[in-house]
């Protein structure tokens, strides 16, 4: 059961982030001024991929909550940090971002830090 929750959390987080990143790159530069926030909110209400990403975000949120309720944080946080690896690989393969050795090494350092932090 706990691995199912981990899987839902990781996959839903990754899907949500990929959809957001893809759609927002297409939309162009956004701002966080009052007008920018209203624009973003409008986009979230209209654009299909962004709606889907929010749905995925809700799934990942509730799966993570269920995970935290049944498992200690020291398991839940590192396990869900696996989405880091999945998302970075997907960003390279699906979004065609350039993930060179330096970015990969830095990401692994951060991942190691998160795993240690939760101990």
């Amino acid at each position, binding site marked *: 059961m706990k691995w199912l929750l981990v899987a839902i959390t990781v996959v839903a987080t990754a899907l949500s982030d990929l959809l957001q990143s893809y759609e927002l790159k297409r939309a162009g530069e956004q701002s966080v001024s009052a007008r920018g926030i209203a624009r973003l909110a409008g986009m979230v209400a209209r654009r299909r991929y962004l709606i889907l990403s929010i749905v995925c975000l809700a799934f990942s949120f509730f799966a993570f909550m269920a995970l935290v309720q049944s498992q200690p944080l020291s398991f839940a946080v590192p396990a869900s940090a696996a989405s*880091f690896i999945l998302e970075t690989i997907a960003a390279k393969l699906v979004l065609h971002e350039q993930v060179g050795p330096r970015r990969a090494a830095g*990401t692994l350092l*951060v991942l190691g830090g998160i795993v240690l932090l939760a101990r």
Partner: protein
Amino acid sequence: MWGRPPGLRGTPSSRSGRQSLESLPGRPGGRPQTGASAPLSWQAENSVYPASPGCYHQTVDQPRTMRTYLLVLLFIGLRGCGNLLLAWGTKRLPAVLGVHPAAYLQSMLDPAVAAGIAMLIFSLFTRMALLSIADLSFVLPVTAVGYVLAAALGKLFLHEEVTAVRWLAAFLIFAGVAVVGSTPQNTTKEAPAK
């Protein structure tokens, strides 16, 4: 502050005056008149006066880099404070949150919980703005500083102890962020399609 705007110092009259001074065999000692033309032009280029617009356009990427990091800071701060408010607010509540939606709705009436939720929603929009200008594989590790902030806030407000392992973890995260931060922020070359 300035006696005169730098642009005014290079008026034809003063320039001709300087030339006449420089043409003299014995220059007046002590006065910085000798190499005056070079410092004056340097001053004009770097002054706060918009005399030379070139200096604002020489690095196109700099404002965007600044913008990205400002958004990162805003996002991390909002999410950290939002989560803290949410944790604090829900712990303060007498009722235990169960599976009943009514309990959740009731908890949202608490000012701390409501403020926390508002901050988290705003942080979501901030992250969207961030993703609109930077790579996902850049945003993910860089915003992981939030994990360190969460641990620090936990120590400050919930009085958790910070072990040596946690310090090492924080160091690893910061080192990783520094390494990722040295890579280009946006590597997808395609122009925004309409």
